[in-house]
């Protein structure tokens, strides 16, 4: 029953049609929240007692870092769906999410490095959190390169899915790196189990920024996946009808 449900609602055609309906709303809400969260964080949130104004990078760095891991986790679920149930759309989504993952992981590393200059006195440190995030960035690039290196697309999908599943081991390492090792990077400020250590005046804009960045990346993901699906299925009748 689950298999038939997955196959029925996971055709590339339905995906392109359904996401086209949601896209404008996701895009509008995402960009609006991102602008609101950033303006609130940059201009109206109070100055941090220890880090001064440099802490305002948090409203960009935390959403980017969370999404870098979340996108990979999403890709690993898609990879399992592709390997177990042979869902074609799942492979398409991995291939489409990987460039978005590269960009957001780069933003996380870049913003962290810049933040490190006034806070730690250095832009780079071979610290557990930073190094494991760099490995995530290389994983994303590796996934894209692996898929592009095969002329047989189905074989490329399968191997890419296997690599994604193997690489998911890095996600809990990134998450727990600040607890397992003594690192320069501060521990998580927001935790589902332990609550938050951030004052509401900073937490509200941060939450809105996380929500906005997530929706904006979903919107970008929808566009990238549409481009990839149309390219991959360009010889199918439904694509001709769609354009």
């Amino acid at each position, binding site marked *: 029953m689950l298999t038939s449900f997955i196959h029925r609602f996971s055709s590339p055609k339905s995906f392109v049609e359904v996401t086209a309906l949601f896209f404008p709303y996701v895009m509008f809400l995402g960009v609006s929240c991102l602008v609101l969260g*950033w303006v609130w964080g*940059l*201009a*109206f*949130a*109070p*100055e941090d007692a220890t880090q*001064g*104004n*440099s802490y*305002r*990078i948090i409203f*960009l*760095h935390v959403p*980017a870092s969370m999404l870098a891991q979340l996108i990979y986790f999403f890709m690993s679920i898609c990879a399992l769906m592709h390997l177990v149930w042979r869902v074609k759309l799942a492979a398409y989504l991995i291939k489409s999410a990987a460039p*978005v993952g590269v*960009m957001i992981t*780069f*933003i996380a590393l*870049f*913003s962290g490095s*810049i*933040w490190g*200059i*006034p806070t730690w006195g250095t832009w780079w440190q071979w610290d557990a959190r930073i190094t494991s995030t760099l490995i995530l960035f290389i994983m994303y690039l590796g996934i894209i390169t692996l898929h592009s290196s095969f002329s047989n697309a189905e074989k490329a999908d399968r191997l890419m899915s296997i690599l994604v599943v193997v690489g998911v081991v890095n996600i809990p390492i990134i998450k727990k790196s600040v607890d397992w090792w003594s690192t320069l990077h501060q521990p998580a400020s927001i935790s589902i189990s332990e609550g938050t250590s951030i004052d509401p*005046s900073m937490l*509200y804009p941060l939450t809105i920024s996380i929500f906005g960045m997530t929706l*904006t990346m979903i*919107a*970008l993901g929808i*566009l*990238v996946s*549409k*481009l990839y699906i*149309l*390219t991959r299925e*360009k010889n199918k009748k439904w*694509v*001709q009808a769609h*354009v």
Partner: protein
Amino acid sequence: MFNFSFTDFQDFLTMDGHGIYVWTVYLVTSILIAVSFLIVRYKLNVLKRKLENASE
């Protein structure tokens, strides 16, 4: 909660010497995100045109 945290606009830009770091990060990220959307949109339009021409 919605009080402007700086004395004036100049103070907002400089952020006590941290402005260069903060603004660089926000500017580069905004450009990256905007350019990504524009590139994908452009590629989609090119692809659609190609498919339309092929079907004619």
